[in-house]
């Protein structure tokens, strides 16, 4: 065992600080698990967990489309909208380039069932066209970003309506907390795959939460604000369209 000199310690602290500072000002996507990051067992397990939700989603979409053929086109446009949104830069404070998730908005507009299917397609496109996420980790990412997060957002949104919360506050809370929930689920998934030597899964989850907090927390807040503006804007000058969009949700 060697002793650190004061200078060495200072250098190390400085370098950690630089890393923390700089890590916040780079490309920030919502938190996908990268290709190759999970072992085969976890890839298959998370994929299996996602299957029932996807099956339910496909069945619900099929029913909606049989009733109203326009729905397919509308859903496709919605999927493209979410994908484009997630590939665009949004303004951010630190000068980094952040990207929205868009799944919270989708859950509010189209409901969690349709979002799960649109979500897995968008995640596949992100993996192949934007190199974000991956094919082997598709199951895990689908669970955290297309199932858990949207369902959480949707429940919060419904609860907010029930308790007659202010619309703006309600949308903001649903989307921002949904994003944070996604980030927690992803951290848990990573922690379960790589538990810490000294503290097990819980300690490892804390580590992942800490490492990604500087990028994910501001992202959730900005996404919440943007979604509020989008939903408000839709209500003020696209009310008939919004009503029409609502039928997808009724089909579920």
């Amino acid at each position, binding site marked *: *065992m060697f002793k650190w000199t004061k200078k060495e310690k200072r250098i190390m602290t400085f370098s950690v600080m630089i890393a923390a500072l700089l890590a916040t000002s780079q490309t920030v996507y919502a938190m996908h698990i990268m290709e190759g990051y999970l072992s085969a067992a976890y890839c298959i397990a998370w994929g299996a967990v996602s299957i029932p939700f996807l099956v339910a989603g496909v069945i619900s979409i099929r029913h909606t489309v049989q009733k109203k053929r326009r729905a397919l086109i*509308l859903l496709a446009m919605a999927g493209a909208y979410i994908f484009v949104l997630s590939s665009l*830069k949004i303004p951010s404070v630190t000068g980094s380039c952040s990207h929205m998730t868009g799944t919270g908005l989708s859950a509010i507009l189209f409901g969690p069932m349709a979002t799960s299917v649109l979500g897995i397609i968008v995640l596949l496109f992100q993996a192949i066209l934007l190199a974000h996420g991956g*094919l082997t980790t598709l199951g895990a990412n689908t669970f955290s970003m297309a199932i858990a997060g949207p369902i959480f957002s949707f429940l919060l949104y419904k609860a907010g309506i029930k308790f007659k919360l202010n619309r703006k506050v309600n949308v903001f809370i649903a989307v921002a907390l949904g994003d944070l929930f996604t980030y927690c689920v992803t951290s848990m998934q990573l922690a379960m795959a790589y538990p810490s030597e000294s503290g097990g899964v819980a300690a490892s989850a804390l*580590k992942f939460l800490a490492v990604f907090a500087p990028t994910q927390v501001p992202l959730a807040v900005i996404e919440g604000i943007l979604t509020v503006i989008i939903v408000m804007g839709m209500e003020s000058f696209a009310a008939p369209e919004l009503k029409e969009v609502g039928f997808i949700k009724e089909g579920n």
Partner: protein
Amino acid sequence: MIITAILTMLVIWCLFYGAVPGVALVCLCLVMGGFLAVVGRHKHEGFLVIDIIAQRSQLNKINSPLKFWTVLILLFLCIASRSVVVGLVLMAVMLFLTVAVGGLELHDYLSLLSLPVSFVLISALALLVDYGSSPFGVINLPVSQGYLVVSQAAQLRTALVLSKALGALSCLYLLSLSTPMPEIISVLRKAHVPDIVIELMYLIYRYTFVLFEMYRSMKDAAKSRLGFVNFSTSVKTTGKIYTNLLARSYQKSMNNFDAMESRCYIGEIRFLENKKELSRLHAIVAASLVVIISGLTITLH
């Protein structure tokens, strides 16, 4: 890009600390960091750069089911492996295939890799560093009552995870930099993914370009009217652009539906698929690659 370089240096430093003598370690860090900083400059110009590269790639001529399934098998072999070697071999092979055979510039390849790699590195930092009450590692940094520890076991584990992630990423890149989306969708259709999902995928892919074109003109219009002059204005502008995009995309999709219905759309769309012959040489190369990698995966620990 400089950030990725610094992160790389930090992670390499923690990773090999104690295993490689000090001077060599510093050199290694500087070489890797400098290399990334100079070669792979991250650009943000075109939309869906990967799609354009895939259309141009020399590897685009190869039968797409062959590419897709080979890459998928290699991916699973890579993540199932328990040795650093498999990931590194795959990285080298994929680099060769994409750059030398596919005709992509090395600089472009590295700059495309740098984006996911920075994410992989941040996660690697979380894997490396542990917080404990006793200094049991190679690097121990006292913080308040405990220590930030990098242990040897953590180093080994992180090296394995990193190599697997990089190997898998290179495999994914081979596929995505040589196979346009419609062909991947047609492979999925043959693999019996539900028709409705396939139709959705085709349509989403096409609408993506329509929407992006719309977005670009709206953004230019807003920009020329000082819509992004400061942070709060740009948040407002972005929100409005997205609203408008959603409303316009809705109208567009309704027009699209009318157009389709007037062309006898009854709830099923089939797209034209280009057939690419399966060449014997390609099949042999793919098969031998799979055999070699699975051999490595099984034998090495």
